[in-house]
Structure formats: C-alpha cells, structure tokens
C-alpha cells in the first residue's frame, strides 16, 4: 500500500513540474524551421505534401535506419519462434477452426478493393496524405485477409524474407546515387535546378520500395505468429 501511494505522489510531482515549465512555452518554441520548410520545401523536393518531402529528402537518413529496424525485428521474431519451413503433419483432435460462410464471401469481395486502395495510397504519397509506411500497412492488412478465405494457405516465408532483403539493398543503392550527380549522399539524385516534375520520379520510386518492404515485413511477422507450434 505504501508503494502505491508513494508512486502516485511521485507522478503528481512530475505533473506539477511539467505544468510550471509549460507556462513559458512561447519563449522556447522556435519558428525558423517552419518558415524555411514552407518557403523552400516545394521547389527543393518537388512534392506538394511537405511531410513526404521531409522524410524522403531532407531526412532520408532516418528513414533508412527505420527500414533497417524493421528488418532486424522480423529476423528477431523468426529466430525466437524457431520456425521451420517443412509442414508438420500434426493432427490435433480438438482444433477444428471453421470460419462462417459470411466471412469467406465478404473477404472475397473486399480483397481486391483493399489491395487497390493500398496501392493508391502508396503511389500518391507526394500529392495527398499518404506515403510508403501508411500504404504498406494497408497492403499488409489486405494480404492477411486471405487467411480468412483459406486457413490452410501456406506462405513460403524464406522467399518473402529474401525479397525483403533485396528491397532494402535497392533502397540503399538508390539513395546513394546522389553522390555522383550532386556531390552529397542520401538525397535526391536529380540536380537542384532541374524542372520540378522530374524530381517526383525519385519520390515515387522510393515510396514504392518502402511500401513493399513494410508490407512484406508485417506479413512475415504475422505468419510466424500463426504457425507458432503447429
């Protein structure tokens, strides 16, 4: 009982410190970054969506490491689950999972619509809210709905992991192409004074690669969970 009360008192003290420091917030906050992005963002990166321009051009280094973290997490889940590829022919007596007919029919109608919407969100990353990460999650959900249709569907996990590693290599190669045309690493490879429409080529190709990588990674994680111990 003493522990809970002392914990609550400590958290209330932290809240009090936060409230007194928030009273002078307008002195701390700096507007220079926002003014720079809204004036130079469109002509430098070529994208109408400023957020996509930031995580694909000004801060590409962070996105590369985030893709690397996804790769490491998928490998970690595969290692811990000790998932082997050959199907184990175990027949469990009390394990019949029968999905209702309604789910199966609806999944058959919804699957192409979800896939199309996911690809639209990926490709239109620089013109409207969206992008590689968001679209990749939607495509992963669309592929997972296939498990409703047929619960004995097998996914060859080794091939999925190999494709994912090659996609990551492609990501690193395309982002370091700018060393030869502009003289600095990890930015757009089209020179700064070219036409604005040419700069969108780089954005679209990066978005497609990131979206495919995120989708395959999430499908691999989900397959490892579903096959754990069966």
């Amino acid at each position: 009982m003493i522990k809970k009360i002392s914990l609550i008192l400590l958290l209330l003290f932290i809240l009090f410190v936060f409230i007194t420091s928030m009273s002078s917030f307008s002195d701390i906050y700096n507007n220079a970054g926002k003014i720079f992005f809204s004036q130079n963002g469109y002509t430098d990166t070529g994208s109408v969506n400023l957020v996509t321009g930031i995580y694909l051009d000004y801060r590409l280094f962070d996105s590369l490491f985030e893709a690397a973290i996804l790769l490491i997490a998928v490998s970690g889940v595969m290692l811990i689950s000790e998932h082997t590829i050959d199907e184990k022919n175990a027949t469990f007596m009390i394990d019949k999972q029968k999905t209702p007919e309604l789910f199966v029919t609806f999944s058959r109608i919804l699957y192409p619509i979800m896939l199309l919407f996911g690809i639209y969100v990926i490709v239109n990353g620089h013109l409207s809210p969206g992008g590689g990460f968001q679209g990749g999650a939607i495509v992963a959900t669309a592929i997972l709905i296939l498990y409703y249709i047929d619960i004995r569907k097998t996914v060859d996990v080794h091939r999925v992991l190999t494709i994912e590693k090659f996609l990551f290599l492609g990501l690193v190669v395309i982002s370091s192409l700018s060393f030869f045309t502009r003289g600095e690493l990890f930015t757009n490879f089209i020179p700064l004074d070219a036409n604005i429409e040419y700069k969108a080529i780089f954005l679209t190709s990066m978005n497609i690669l990131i979206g495919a990588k995120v989708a395959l990674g999430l499908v691999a994680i989900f397959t490892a969970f579903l096959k754990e111990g069966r």
Partner: protein
Amino acid sequence: MNDLIPTLLQILLIIIALAIVFHKENFTIIIYISSFGLVAATLYVLNQAPDVAIAEVAIGSAIIPLIYVISISRQREFIVLDRVDHDLINDELIDEKNVELYQILNKFVDHNDLKMNVCANIKGSDEDLTTDLNVDLIVSFDHEKQKFILKGKQSSILMDHLIKETFTYDYIEIVTFKEGESID
C-alpha cells in the same frame, strides 16, 4: 463550441486509459486498445496531421489487436500427447484407470483456467516434440511396471502442481526432464 470538442475527446482518452489499466480480464482489453487507437487518430486529425492519423488507424487498430488475439489464445491451451497403445491393453482394470487418469487431468486443467487439447499419432523423439511443437505432457504406459508414465518439462510450474496432486495415486508416475536433453 469548436474549442470544446478536442477537450472532451482528450478526457475520453484518459477514461479509456484508466479502464485499460484497472481491468482484470486480458481478452476484453483488446477491444479497449482498438477504440483507444481510433479516438487517438481522431485527435491527430484535429491537430492538423492527417498522415499520422492514417498510420495510426492502419497499424494500431488492425494489425496490433490481431497479434494480441493470437498470442492470448495460445496461452490458454494445455497440450497432451497420448502414446498409450490401446490395442495391446487387454485388462479392464487398466482401462478404468485410464479413464480415471483423464478425469484427474480434466480437473487439474479446469482448476488452472486452461483448455485441454489432446492429440495422438505423432512420431518423433520426446525433446524434439517439446521444443518444436510445444507439447506440455506426454502420456505413455509401461508394461513391466504396470504404471502410467507422464513426462513433462522440469522448469514448468504446472508440473510441480501436478506432482503434488497425483502423489497419492500409485499407478501414476511423473518424470521430468530438462529441455534439450533426453532421458533413457
């Protein structure tokens, strides 16, 4: 009025967070997590950030509850492997004891809030099965000693409870082994 809606939504978020912390059943908290993600996504849109809202809805309300459901339902099962050769048993007394053994196991499993899952006809050595397929208990019958032998993992706490409960029965013997080493 326009200033009231974000404040009300933030208070709703606090109420859902309190409900998650203080609830006891693990399985119903998953629905709270899904609604928590949706209310948070609405607040992100009201703070002029539609990109973050799409990411939160796609990941926090579709993929995360799916993974939680699978991992929670895996933790409610108790897998028993039956290796008793029913063709070789001719004695009726041993058949009765077989039925009694399963009644004891059923009571034990109900007491610990688990579900029992019985399977048969799997080939393979014992320690391979416990690590690969996560089998919890292997039942077999020894003809020389005329006893039922139950094998399980040494590090499991359920085996300790099982040893205490079947101490008084003389036709059941429990053998525990460490994972990764075989017994002879």
